[in-house]
């Protein structure tokens, strides 16, 4: 058992941290309020080789693992949660192409994603297929060498700004999840349109658009994995995505905790710094403990993935625990700031708004618990 990062990992994370401190963090508030996709940040992620960390070098990536990808995601999320979300959603297009794509698909689609030249997105969720992923209504009908897609997706992160999409559609609705098929789509394909961007509680600058397929013709060669293999593509992608969500929550929680500690050590009430009061100290202790647990669970899930071990249960545990811990931590960070915490003078009100998302997207906490329970019972039966 070894909890230490290698020297190379330390240097990589230090370089990313410096970028976060110098560039992302100072403009995080501006990004939050702008209402415009943070293109400048995203472009820099590409320039600094952050968009293909876990992609092999032969496809333009760095050839590192999901663990490195996750730790970098944590740092990005701590500095600018919106930028961290772009980074996470990008991987949801990269990962399935890496895992299931043909060599041609990897060269054509994975390479520009890994270099950051193009942004990726993953489209599963629909108005009536959220937690119930099997209820995907977007249809794909074969027509010669093409499939014709009709339907729509909602809340798609990077939607409209991304150029490469992995879309889950159904070729055989009667068979439910067994009819699901993954396609690679490119922005600009005829019949592939974008709806409005959602107005959200936070992440004003993050795109979460509707994707609309209006007789959109997709070449059969753009099927990812195989016809009717889409459920597996989706589930494996979401499993890695959970690590991303977990680690994003850890980063955000860390930022909230850091802000709270700094405030507690400078704010004076009753003639002392409030950090000298036990009521505050206990809060800080609980927050730090929550974060450490969440981080260890997340790292472990990533490590298992890289080691080729089953990681689905751990990823779900990490996601549910980290997202809920993040909400607790952000809540307490606002509380420690008192009235100031409720104002825009301090970043914690933003953290508080941002935290809630983690408990909802890419599988709500309830779904995570279902995933965990299913695995636990399966394991128990197998004994």
């Amino acid at each position: 058992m070894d909890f230490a990062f290698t020297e190379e990992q330390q240097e990589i994370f230090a370089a990313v941290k410096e970028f976060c401190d110098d560039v992302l963090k100072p403009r995080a508030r501006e990004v939050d309020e702008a209402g415009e996709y943070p293109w400048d940040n995203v472009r820099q992620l590409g320039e600094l080789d952050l968009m293909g960390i876990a992609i092999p070098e032969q496809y333009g990536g760095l050839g590192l693992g999901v663990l490195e990808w996750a730790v970098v995601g944590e740092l990005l999320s701590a500095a600018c949660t919106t930028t961290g979300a772009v980074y996470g959603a990008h991987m949801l297009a990269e990962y399935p192409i890496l895992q299931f794509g043909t060599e041609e698909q990897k060269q054509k689609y994975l390479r520009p994603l890994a270099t950051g030249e193009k942004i990726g997105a993953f489209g599963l969720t629909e108005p009536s297929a959220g937690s119930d992923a099997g209820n995907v209504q977007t249809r794909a009908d074969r027509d010669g060498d093409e499939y014709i897609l009709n339907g729509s997706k909602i809340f798609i992160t990077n939607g409209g700004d991304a150029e490469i999409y992995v879309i889950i559609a159904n070729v055989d609705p009667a068979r439910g999840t067994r009819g699901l098929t993954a396609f690679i789509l490119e922005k600009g394909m005829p019949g592939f349109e974008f709806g409005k961007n959602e107005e959200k509680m936070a992440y004003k600058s993050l795109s979460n658009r509707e994707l609309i397929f209006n007789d959109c013709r997709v070449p059969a060669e753009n099927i990812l994995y195989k016809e009717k293999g889409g459920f597996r593509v989706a589930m494996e992608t979401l499993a890695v995505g959970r690590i991303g969500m977990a680690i994003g929550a850890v980063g955000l929680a860390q930022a909230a905790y850091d802000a709270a500690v700094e405030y507690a050590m400078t704010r004076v009430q009753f003639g002392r710094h409030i950090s000298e009061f036990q009521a505050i100290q206990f809060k800080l202790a609980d927050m730090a403990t929550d974060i450490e647990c969440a981080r260890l669970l997340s790292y472990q899930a990533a490590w298992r993935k890289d080691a080729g071990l089953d990681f689905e249960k751990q990823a779900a545990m990490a996601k549910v625990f980290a997202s809920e811990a993040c909400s607790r931590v952000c809540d307490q960070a606002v509380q420690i700031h008192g009235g100031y915490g409720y104002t825009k003078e301090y970043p914690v009100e933003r953290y508080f708004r941002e935290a809630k998302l983690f408990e909802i997207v890419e599988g709500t906490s309830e779904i995570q618990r279902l995933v965990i329970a299913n695995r636990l019972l399966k394991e128990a039966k197998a004994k």
Partner: protein
Amino acid sequence: MAINIYIDPDKCVGCKLCLGACPYGAIVVEEGKARFTEACVLCGACVSSCKFGAIIWEQPKKEEVDTSQYQGVWVIAETHDGRLAEVTLELLGEGRKLADTLDEPLSLLLLGNGVEPLASVAGHYGADRVYLVEDEVLAHYRTAPFTDVAVGLINKYKPSIVLIGATSMGRDLGPRIAARIGAGLTADCTGLEIDPQERLLRQTRPAFGGNIMATILCRHARPQMATVRPKVMKKLDPDPGRQVEIVREQVSLNEKTIVTKIVEIVREEGDEQVNLQDAEIIVSGGRGLRAAENFALIRELADVLGAAVGASRATVDAGWIPAYHQVGQTGKTVQPKLYIACGISGAVQHLAGMSSSDCIVAINSDPNAPIFDVATYGIVGDLFEVVPALTKALKREFGQQ
């Protein structure tokens, strides 16, 4: 032994390139080889002009320098728009003290074009003698001709101490001269005194952003050179009755051999032209402002006071305000009548740039902030409350007048 210069006959091809480079006409070419004449003052201007490495310039080993040959205190003048720079007057004041302690003369090395009237001004401010070199080539400061002329005269007259303002000019010229003659040079001094026993110049300067002070001696090499921070030394009250001896030095500088050309002088208008160092009142903002837009509070207060806007390094590094507003060790050293520090904790590197202000007002929410250690008046409080209140009160105050 002092500096030695000679021509390696094996390398010299008699090309005469060095003739044009010599400001003193001290090189002749005979029988296809260059030779120095008696007129050579050891300025070194020819060395880099030789494309064949035939001119050998040898600095003495430090034990070989006969320090007893070096006498007198020199100040190298900086002029702007036909006037002696403030720092030059300050150095004459300080140089006067050093020269009196040593009982040696104080001289000003004055290079320029049409600068002779300044010689008597230098006398009023304490100089005994002015070495005057006038030439069109010297009209505007440039590294190479100023170095060549200064080195020649230093080698000729052998001053014991040479002081230069630690300005962009002095810090460009000083190290170039020192490197050519192998002299010791101490940068950006804030304190000078003569060691009574050794009669050496004790040079004190801040390092590590002003966190430590170091006293530096130069025992063997000569002259002892220092650049001195502006606004630290005090100039004398001018005495118009004071006479000065003018020693005019002839050089023949050739514009063609000066490779560096000044193409343009750009003066920018408006906010770009913050001359913090001339401001009587400065209002500065620090990290406590929390965001770029909050510098508006600082600007409003500065407007009411007719003050310049300063900034701490943290705010400049964060990109909240351009670097030319920065006060401190790596920014500007200022000495206004009134310095108002808002949300500046007072890192030593900041204090180094402003702690000699006449009156310092500090506004900071942390009662333990080091800025309060230097503040004449300290207000522990939220700058977002105090600064607007102060602005408002001052508006009222001035409005009534």
